[in-house]
């Protein structure tokens, strides 16, 4: 079974990669399995300077989901390159760098450093982090701002493709997708987390120190599927889908909705070997439901509709 997947700038062995922020820089997981099995790796968000993130608690469990408010803790782009990317480069796996910032110029600077010094295979533009006070989510909920930052980052990235990560905390996801596509995005990654909160009955205060956090995990899968399905009908750039994937069956559901590849986030915490297990199960699942390759399945959840409207 052919699991190969071709996306702008990315020639993937298979369509499965860990999602940003849920895999660090791969170091810990490499103790548990051979990272060469992965389709790609999306690394944790990089900002210009070191960031210390939010106070703890930073995570909470919810029904079929979790909340996180890490707050973009990272050692800054230069140290990420020196301490982490060189190590990751020893694997034969494309690296997608997640770029975050508070201002358009920070996004531009981080992108320049990553594409010139580190030669990452793609940029994932994180305009949707709900857990920082400045930047991030404002860009992700306002089509003009999203379009502006996409345009400038695209200018700065040279020939390294830029995938824009969309926030689900919007009324009109198709509008956002079109805005960043028009601004030059080479692809979309979706979805980031939904803003949520849990309140401790004992302490009478939100569980997370940051009060709100990003909701991820199987709880949000129906929202991710809906958004990808809708966006697929209105944009032509490829989509890396994510949100609650736990199994190879889930991967196929995302492909049917219109994703060309997928990322797995929260499931890595439940089962740190979930990525290779899903990759191993995928051929059987594709075959069981009558598909002969990954590409064969992409967007096939829309077929019936086309048939109907042709009738």
């Amino acid at each position, binding site marked *: 079974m052919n699991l190969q997947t071709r996306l702008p700038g990315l020639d993937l062995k298979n369509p499965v990669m860990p999602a940003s*922020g849920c895999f*660090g820089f791969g170091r810990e*997981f490499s103790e*548990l399995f051979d990272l060469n099995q992965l389709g790609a790796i999306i690394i944790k968000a990089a900002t210009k300077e070191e960031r*210390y*993130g939010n106070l703890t608690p930073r995570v909470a469990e919810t029904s*079929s989901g979790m909340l996180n408010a890490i707050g973009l803790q990272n050692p800054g782009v230069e140290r990420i390159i020196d301490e982490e990317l060189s190590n990751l480069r020893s694997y034969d796996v494309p690296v997608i760098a997640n770029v975050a910032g508070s201002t358009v110029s920070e996004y531009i600077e981080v992108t320049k450093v990553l594409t010139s010094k580190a030669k990452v295979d793609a940029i994932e533009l994180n305009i949707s982090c709900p857990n920082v006070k400045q930047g991030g989510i404002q860009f992700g909920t306002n089509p003009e701002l999203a379009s502006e930052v996409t345009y400038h980052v695209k200018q700065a990235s040279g020939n390294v493709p830029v995938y824009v990560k969309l926030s689900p905390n919007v009324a009109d996801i198709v509008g956002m997708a079109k805005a960043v596509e028009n601004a030059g995005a080479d692809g979309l990654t979706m979805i980031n987390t939904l803003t949520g909160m849990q309140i401790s009955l004992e302490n009478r205060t939100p569980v997370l120190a940051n009060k709100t956090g990003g909701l991820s995990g199987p709880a949000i899968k129906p929202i991710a599927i809906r958004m990808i399905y809708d966006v697929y009908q209105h944009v032509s750039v490829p989509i890396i889908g994510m949100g609650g994937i736990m199994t190879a069956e889930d991967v196929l559901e995302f492909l049917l909705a219109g994703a060309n590849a997928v990322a797995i986030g929260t499931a890595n915490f439940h089962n*740190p070997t979930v990525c290779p297990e899903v990759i191993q199960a995928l051929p059987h699942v594709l075959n069981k439901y009558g598909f002969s390759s990954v590409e064969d399945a992409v967007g096939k959840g829309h077929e019936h509709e086309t048939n109907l409207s042709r009738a």
Partner: protein
Amino acid sequence: MKKKIVEVTKVETIAQDTIEMTLAAPGITTGIQPGQFVHINVGSNSSHLLRRPISIADVDLMEQTVTIIFKVVGSGTAQLGQYKVGERLEVLLPCGTGYPIDSINMSKALLIGGGIGVPPLYYLGKKLADQGIEVISILGFQSSSNVFYESKFNQLGDCHVVTDDGTYGYKGYVTDVVDQLSLKYDYYFSCGPTGMLQAVTNKLAYQDGYISIEQRMGCGIGACYACVVPTNDGTNGFKKICKDGPVFRANEVVLR
């Protein structure tokens, strides 16, 4: 750190809401240091997405088993407590960095445990006693019904139990017992609720010691930055409890 399927070989309620459970699998004990923990997948995908960290309380190299002791405080520990002898669990172990006992030079150690902070100190004490180090312990519990492992600690050396309400042993807090006994020792090792650790590290500020701390975890292996604690070195930096800890030098991190 490895992912293992283990078999539950013993489940016993040893105090109020407190369960001792033994997990067996070939190779399970390899490389375990006292103070490390097991990161346990307690349920199915949707019921408990996050694993639960539980300290290693004892290790049996012959039987290839690891013993954990946990208190049922919420839905995760409740579900863990439902497992029966013969059933299987999926765990990551050993996780984190334990007490660096091989690199410390000492002849006398004081263990100070509070509540569910007591379990990791037992395997620590056992290893220390094996090395010929004198072990004194002070164990604090809420009430007489919560006391466990007193006789086990007594086999390692003097053990003083204290309860908040005085229904068993001394009345008061572990720090009160530290005052009354005016002990001499080289290092102290403490694990318990944050409030207790603050009191202990304040009182014993002049002493060398190690503490073990808790925080809600995501991955439990150092990848997600959920479980950080601020370092005390003026850098605004953080340490990861799941990887750099849970054991730290007493003055290495900021407790709050």
